[in-house]
């Protein structure tokens, strides 16, 4: 298209000649794109921050836990990952730098923790001194669980900071006593604050020695534990996962063809599931808001039709100078597309601004983040709207009779 640049220039000129009207024309598109970008940037920002949190865990850390299959459920088989499994993995699987159990006494906010007349509900976990958690798992006061705590089944506890507020404990809670399962536990450490991830408080947790937790269950009970395994070399993760699977299948007497009754997950896999959900939400939201782009497009068509009528004489002049139908069509079409794209740019900026503001106001969102595909999508949509809704006015302009157009009184 030799005159594309020229059409572009005259389209910009026409837009500049009516700045306010052009702006109002694109308002629909601006709002639609801004809404899409705000929603997407918030959800993606949220996902981004979760991703970073997971990344702290390291991609070479595997978590092994029990996973009841449908078959197990119907046969009533009790599915567990046991300390014996841990022993077997430790002895038989090479390439592991670190292995530790975590005994879940109470998940999330389901375990009662008492202090005086106050009761808090927390996740209660039994861990060894070898437990690594994530990169932010360290005490800001006191210490973590020691080997002798574990061996001696001591009643000590390391607490997350939510417990301090919920139980009205002094800021330095080390040395306080808490009651769980009818027993008194001495606070020996307070963990670094992790904050919220997706509305999920990460600090309403308490950790007691693994041995203590096991004895609380009753020494005769075989506990269902989670096993955390650190692989020496991230490249070895698939191989180690394979060997762990072999060992556990043998330990659990799973016949060939039967499903595993456990899962070996990397943080990335956990994250993958999480991100799938978020992406689905993003798409749905984006789609809903995208419909409003249609409304924006109708606005553009409306004003372009007015513009064609207003500029009838100009079209007549261009035709008298030798403009063909397609020259006129292209010029008006480009004008519509530029208007839409301008709306897209302004909407992008506005949407990101609104997203950032909301992210500031609501800490759970942890910042706005606009992925490149959302930008492309927004522009693609805006351009499409421009073409679709610009074509009718442009065709009208192109089809004008030159004489009648020239006679038209401006």
């Amino acid at each position, binding site marked *: 298209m030799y005159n594309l640049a020229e059409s572009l220039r005259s389209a910009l000129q026409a837009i500049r000649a009516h700045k306010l009207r052009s702006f109002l024309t694109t308002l629909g598109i601006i709002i639609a794109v801004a809404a899409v970008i705000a929603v997407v940037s918030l959800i993606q920002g949220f996902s981004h921050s979760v991703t970073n949190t997971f990344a702290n865990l390291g991609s070479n850390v595997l978590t092994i836990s029990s996973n009841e299959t449908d078959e197990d459920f119907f046969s009533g088989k009790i599915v567990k990952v046991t300390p014996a499994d841990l022993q077997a993995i430790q002895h038989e699987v090479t390439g592991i730098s670190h292995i530790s159990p975590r005994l879940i006494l109470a998940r999330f906010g389901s375990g009662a923790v008492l202090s005086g007349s106050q009761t808090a509900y927390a996740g209660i976990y039994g861990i060894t001194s070898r437990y690594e958690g994530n990169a932010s798992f360290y005490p800001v006061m006191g210490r973590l669980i020691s080997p002798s705590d574990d061996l001696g089944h001591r009643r000590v506890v390391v607490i997350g900071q939510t417990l301090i507020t919920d139980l009205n404990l002094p800021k330095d809670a080390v040395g306080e006593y808490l009651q769980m399962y009818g027993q008194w536990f001495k606070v020996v450490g307070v963990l670094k604050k992790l904050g919220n991830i997706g509305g999920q408080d990460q600090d309403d947790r308490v950790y007691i020695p693994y041995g203590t937790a096991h004895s609380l269950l009753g020494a005769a009970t075989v506990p269902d534990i989670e096993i955390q395994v650190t692989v020496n070399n991230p490249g070895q993760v698939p191989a180690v996962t394979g060997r762990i699977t072999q060992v556990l299948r043998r330990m659990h007497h799973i016949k060939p063809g039967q499903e595993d009754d456990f899962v070996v997950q990397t943080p990335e896999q956990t994250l993958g599931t999480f991100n799938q959900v978020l992406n689905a939400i993003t798409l749905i939201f984006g789609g809903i808001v995208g419909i409003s782009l249609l409304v924006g497009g109708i606005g553009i068509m409306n004003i372009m039709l007015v513009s064609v009528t207003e500029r009838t004489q100009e079209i007549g002049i261009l*035709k008298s100078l030798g403009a063909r139908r397609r020259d006129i069509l292209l010029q008006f079409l480009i004008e519509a597309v530029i208007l839409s794209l301008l709306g897209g740019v302004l909407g992008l900026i506005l949407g990101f601004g609104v997203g950032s503001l909301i992210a500031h106001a609501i800490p759970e969102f942890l910042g706005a983040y606009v992925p490149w595909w959302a930008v492309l999508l927004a522009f693609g949509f805006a351009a499409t709207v421009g073409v679709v809704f610009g074509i009718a006015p442009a065709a009208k302009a192109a089809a004008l009779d030159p004489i009648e157009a020239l006679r038209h009184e401006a």
Partner: protein
Amino acid sequence: MSDAPLLELRQVSKRYVMGDNILDALKDVNLKIAHNEYVAFIGPSGSGKSTLMNIVGCLDRPTGGEYILNGTPVAQLDDNALAHIRNREIGFIFQNFNLLGRANALHNVMQPLIYRGIALGERRRLASQALQNVGLGERLHHLPNQLSGGQRQRVAIARALVGKPSILLADEPTGNLDSSTSKDVMAMFDTLYRDGHTIIVVTHDPNIAEHCQRVIHIMDGRIVSDKLNGKRREARAGV
């Protein structure tokens, strides 16, 4: 001059139908114009001068008869082909100048060259040359509303000439100008004629027609007389 006429109209008519009203703006017009003629269409308002000029300029189509331009029958051509002819063969000059209001003088003159696919640099060069030729070399970047009527018409003349058309068509070119600027514009046409251009001027003013070498009277859609202008002919012969 070559023997074959530049353009020829045979029994050309233009009929407007508005509901029950029929208006014949042109009736059986026969006309030949050769290269480098300087022709006036003169007649009272509403006689059909502009209609005739628009047909000659391929802006409009006749409803009857034949129009042959440079040996090509024009009636059968489609819109694109007519646009192509307007772009290459015709230079229009209108009473109300018909400049593009948002474009400066230079861009107004560059506009027809866009449709020829001439590159930007060359367009710019040709357009500023054309403006220089009409004495507007200092006004390239003025918008139409920053120019006087006479200057606007000169921009329009530069725009009509920039593509080196076969015919220059001017519809009441001095109708919106005062008498002294009118003289300037007509003097410019006289020079163009002497330089070998073919010019048709539509007017109702005998003083304007006086400049032309051939004067065609139109009344009620018909050619009522077609005479060579004695004074002009002598003047020309004397050159």
